[in-house]
Structure formats: C-alpha cells, structure tokens
C-alpha cells in the first residue's frame, strides 16, 4: 500500500520561531520505515521527527521530508532483573516511566538520564544526546544506550553498539538524526533506591554562592540545578533558587502520595498569549516574587519525581506563553577553567538587555564523557534561558552571547538552537567535519544545512 506524504505547513518545533513547509510521512511499523527509504529517490532528503520538543531547526527539514516516528511506539522487551529496556524509537520517556510504575514492583529502576520534559522520544533522546540534572554523575543519555538499530536510506538496517559499527554508534548519539533513522534501541536503566525523591530547594544570593553550593552538592546529591533570576544585577547577579535531589527507599505512607502523573497535562494553554505579556516589568515582578518565596535555608521534602524533573509538563503547550512569534532558547556550556568569568559576563549582558524571560537555568556539568561525536556537554557550567522572539534585537543579543561563549572555549546546544552562525558552531564542535563523513546522504536538516555551510553565511540584516 502506497502511503501518501502530506504537505504540511504547521509543523513547528518547541520554540515556534521557524515556520517551514514539509512533506510528512507517518511511520507505524518498521516495514513501513524501510519502504519510506524509497522516498530518497525523489531527490528530497529525510529527517525523523518525534514529539518536536527540540527548540529550533535541528528537527526541521524545510521543503523536504519529515518522517513522523511517533507510531513506532512499541516496547520490545523489559528485563526487570537487569534493568534493560528495549523499545522502538518513538517510545516516549513518559511511557517508560509508566512501564516502570506498573512492571517494576520493587521500584528498583529509573530513567538513567532525563531532560526537563518526559514528552520526548527515545530516538530524540539519542539523536540529541540529552542530559539532565544528574549529568555530574551519569553523563548523557548516550552513556546508557547499549545498542540501536539504524535504518539507512539505502534500506540497510545496521545494528550499532560500541562493538558493532562503532563509528556510526558514536556519530548517531548526538547526531541530530542525520545518520539515518533509529528504529529501536536498548537502554540500560539506572538502579535507584526508590522512585521517590528527597529534595531540597533554597535561594542563594549571587553567582559565587552558586558555584560554592553546586560543587558542595556534587557528591551527595544525584540531581542538582538552579533557577536563576536573570534580571538581577550588580551584587545580586546570578541569584536564584538551587534545587537538589536524590532517590530514597520506599517508606510506609509514601504510597498515599502516589498520583497519576502520566496522563495529559491538567492545565493547558489553548491559544497564544499576546507577545507583550512577557515584558521586563512582568518578568521582573515574577522573578523577584519567586526568589523571595523560596526558603532561605535548605528544607527537605519527600516528593514524587514529577514536580522535580518535569515542572513544566504540568502545563500543556507552555511554549505559547511567548505569543505567535515564538521564542529562542539559548543554551551554552563553558569549560570549567573559564566558567566563572564567562557566566558572569553572559549574565551581565543578559541582565543589561532585559530581554530574557523567567525560564533560566544554571547547572554544573561533570566529567563523564559521552560516546557521542557531536555531544554537547563538556566539564564546565551550562546556562539555558528563553528569549521571546523580538526579531533582530533578539538575534543581535544572542550573537553577542555567542562571542562570549566562543572566546571562553564553549559551545551552544544544537537541540535548542535556531540561529547560531556556521563559524560559531564549527569552532565549538571541532569534530563536525569527521562527523559529516558519517551522515547518510538521504538525510539532512535545516539546522545542518545552516551550520555546515563552508563559507559561513552572513545573516540577513535589515538596512
């Protein structure tokens, strides 16, 4: 049966700032995926699409083909003894969590690494080599991938692991979907004391305190992250709320805290907020309130993992807060040696500009090395924050931030990016040229065409 491709102009990524037209082909079974490889003969390139949670254009393929893998959502095997789960690439982290709650009665296993949303697919987690609040201990998602099946545009299915097709294994982890279509993967879960968390949240005054608390928390706490008030300046620069957590063994009474956490979000934003809703005053008030509301000293509580790991998943479509023109997220990492000064300079520029929103996060990365060739994290500090898309002014500020990141020896995160220059990308990822030899000729993305340009593109600037 010939499955048609649909011409679609409504496929967005999470930042909603790129609007392209795509030919969409939905895949539900692996034989359909193999058949879809024939599409490459049309001369158009392909790219897998999961839940569209990356922010910019790394999951877009303007005027070309997107392969929707959300129908490849079957589990293949779960071994409760070894904690190894094997599933198709469209299985979501939410589905794995749900599986663990129903199938792992001892509550011994948890996701090895999880990003700030559980609504991502396993394929997307591999392709972006996502990290989480436990990077300092566990590294990236790719560190826990045992093997995967990779479908190439010539119809070949390759089993990739550290021992079999190792170069393709390394290129595909963090490879932004460019090496082919991931059909299924085997992932080693993390052994934990229990599904519940012991968590602490408390405010801190400035950047120096952040670095202090963060390094003091690395050994005893599996998870750590800080929300920062990016409008605070001067002596308050970098102030925020630090959160750290670790798994705890089940204790009597915890079951009563259990709640159904994997359904659809209870709240959702059905429409775009007007873009002026996010302004310096409203965000300043919000940030100040949030900071003062946080307790000054660590207070411990036992909590479900949902509010710690996925606070924003509770609000469906929160990205519409930024209005119809969308937003950019900027996430960079700077190496440990330059981190203190670079983060100070970045936050200074951001605070001065008054452009950033309330969603800003600071986290110290650890030294675990991912197998991924283009993997984003490095030992150092990462900063992530949202900027409502106000056109040229926003892009100019982000370029400024790039220059600080670049001169500190850092780099930006492709999963969040929709605007970095080819030069800045290539400097940040010296392995990009080697990576590009592993790309499947039938696959491409808007992001890749942009950042792999030999003569770096000059961005259109209005007169």
């Amino acid at each position: 049966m010939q499955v048609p491709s649909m011409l679609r102009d409504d496929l967005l990524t999470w930042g909603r700032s790129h609007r392209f037209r795509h030919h969409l082909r939905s895949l539900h079974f692996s034989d359909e995926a193999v058949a879809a490889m024939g599409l490459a003969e049309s001369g158009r390139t392909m790219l897998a699409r999961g839940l569209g949670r990356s922010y910019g254009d790394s999951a877009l393929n303007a005027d070309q083909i997107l392969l929707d893998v959300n129908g490849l959502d079957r589990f293949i095997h779960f071994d409760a003894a070894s904690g190894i789960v094997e599933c198709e690439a469209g299985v979501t982290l939410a589905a794995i969590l749900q599986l663990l709650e129903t199938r792992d009665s001892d509550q011994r296993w948890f996701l090895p690494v999880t990003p700030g949303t559980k609504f991502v697919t396993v394929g997307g987690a591999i392709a972006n080599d996502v990290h989480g609040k436990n990077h300092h201990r566990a590294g990236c998602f790719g560190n826990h991938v045992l093997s995967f099946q990779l479908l190439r545009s010539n119809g070949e299915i390759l089993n990739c692991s550290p021992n079999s097709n190792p170069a393709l294994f390394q290129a595909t982890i963090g490879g932004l979907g460019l090496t082919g279509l991931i059909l299924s993967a085997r992932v080693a879960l993390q052994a934990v004391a229990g599904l519940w968390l012991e968590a602490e949240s408390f405010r801190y005054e400035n950047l120096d305190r952040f670095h202090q608390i963060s390094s003091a928390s690395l050994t005893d706490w599996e998870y750590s992250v800080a929300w920062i008030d990016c409008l605070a300046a001067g002596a308050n620069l970098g102030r925020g709320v630090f959160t750290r957590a670790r798994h705890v063994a089940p204790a009597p009474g915890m079951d009563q805290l259990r709640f159904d956490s994997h359904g659809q979000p209870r709240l959702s934003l059905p429409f775009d907020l007007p873009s002026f809703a996010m302004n310096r005053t409203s965000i300043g008030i919000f940030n100040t309130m949030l900071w003062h509301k946080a307790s000054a000293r660590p207070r411990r509580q036992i909590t479900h993992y949902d509010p710690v790991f996925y606070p924003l998943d509770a609000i469906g479509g929160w990205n519409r807060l930024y209005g119809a023109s969308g937003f950019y997220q900027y996430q960079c990492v700077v190496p440990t040696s330059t981190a203190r000064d670079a983060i100070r300079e970045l936050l200074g520029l951001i605070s001065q500009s008054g452009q950033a929103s309330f969603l800003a996060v600071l986290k110290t990365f650890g030294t675990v090395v991912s197998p991924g060739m283009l993997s984003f994290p490095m030992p150092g500090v990462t900063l992530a924050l949202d900027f409502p898309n106000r056109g040229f002014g926003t892009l100019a500020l982000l370029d400024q931030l790039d220059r600080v990141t670049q001169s500190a020896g850092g780099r930006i995160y492709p999963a969040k990016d929709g605007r970095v220059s080819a030069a800045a990308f290539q400097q940040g990822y010296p392995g990009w040229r080697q990576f590009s030899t592993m790309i499947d000729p039938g696959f491409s993305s808007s992001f890749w065409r942009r950042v792999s340009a030999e003569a770096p593109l000059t961005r259109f600037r209005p007169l």
Partner: protein
Amino acid sequence: MKRVVIFGATSAIAQAVARRYAVDGARFFLAARNAGRLDAVAADLRTRGASAVEVWVGDLADCPGHAALVDLAGRALQGVDCALLAYGTLPDQKTCEEDAAEALRHIGTNYSSAVSLLTQLATLMCAQAYGTIGVIGSVAGDRGRQSNYLYGSAKAGLAVFVQGLRHRLWSRGVRVVLIKPGFVDTPMTAAFPKHGPLWASPDRVAGDIVRALGSGQATLYTPWFWRGIMLVIRLIPDFIFRRIRL
C-alpha cells in the same frame, strides 16, 4: 484477568485498546494479516504486562476460515471475556464509483466478513453464556454522503446486524457493543489532513472503548461529541442536505 480476542490487532485503535488491557495482565489472542507487525504488537503487549499473547496470521476477509479461527481462539484462552472486531478498509470512494468489483471487495471485508465472523463468535459466546463483543463501526454509517457512502453503507449494514445480534444475545448473557469512532488519527486516515478539534488520538478513543465494553452499552460514539454531530447530520432534510458538500 481478562481473556481478550482481537481481530485486526495491528490496527491503531486495536493496539491502543489492547495496551489498556495489557497493563492489567490480560491474556490475548490476536489475529492479523502481517506476521512481522503482529509479532511487534505481541512483544509490546507482553512487555506492558500481558500474561499471555497468542497470535494468528491470516486474512480475515477469508470467511471459510472463520469457524476454525474462532474455535482456536476459544480454546487458546479457555473462554473469551471480550472480543473486538477492529479490522476494516477505507475504500477510495472515487475508485469505487467506477469499479464495482473494487466496491464489492470493500463491502466483503467491511460487511460480509464481519457478518461471518460475528456469526461464529455468537455461537461461541452463546455456548459459554457470558462475554462482550465489541464491533468497530463508524459515524460514516449514520447517513450516506457523496464523499464516502460506499464505506458508509458497509458500516450502516454492520450497525443493523450488530443491533439485531445484541437483541438476540442479550437474554443469553452476552453483550454486544457497537463502537462508532469519528475522525481518528490512524494509518487508515493517512490521506487526510489532520487538523482541528474533530481529530482524536487512538488512545483517547481506546479509553472510551474499554469503558463501553465494561458497561456493555449498546452504542458508543467516540469522542462523545460525535453523537451530537451525527444527530444534526441525520436530521438535515434532504432538500438541504443535497446542496451541502459533505
């Protein structure tokens, strides 16, 4: 622990229904055409918690095999609590207007083969004197429309057959439920642009189906708003209806 038989087990709606039963440890007998796909579905259900999954590969449009198939399912599970007919084709209306053989082929799959299978199932269910049969019909069967009346006519015929079967089996302790989904985002509807609030996910529809099979209600419109929509569509007088492009 429910014993569940699904005909057309690789369909998107069937998979979503089966997953809901699997979590509670159900035992399955699954029938479908494509062996590779069926194996993938079976592995998924086992992983999600199904305590046993048996598969049968074959073409359900092939009616002479139905008696043996139903017998096999009954013996494999040692009784059937719930049977779901979830297979079908969505014909291209334009092609069927020019090709009567093609039209009859779709009537064969969507109506005649269902009649054959339901007749065998009814015998099994009557003998055991319990169980629920769910049949996936369609809102398209509620009124003939120029855009898909071939499909609609098969589903309309099926609706009346199911209605009568329900009437007959009620006193035997067997429930028969007619399920009428609206627009569902599945491979069957791949050729449609899926925008707007009328489109539902297979999972949402499956939630409704599992509830209806539990209660044994006569007819389920899913999602719920299709009951109202189809009521309006049925009530539009012909002199107006014939001017509407639907």
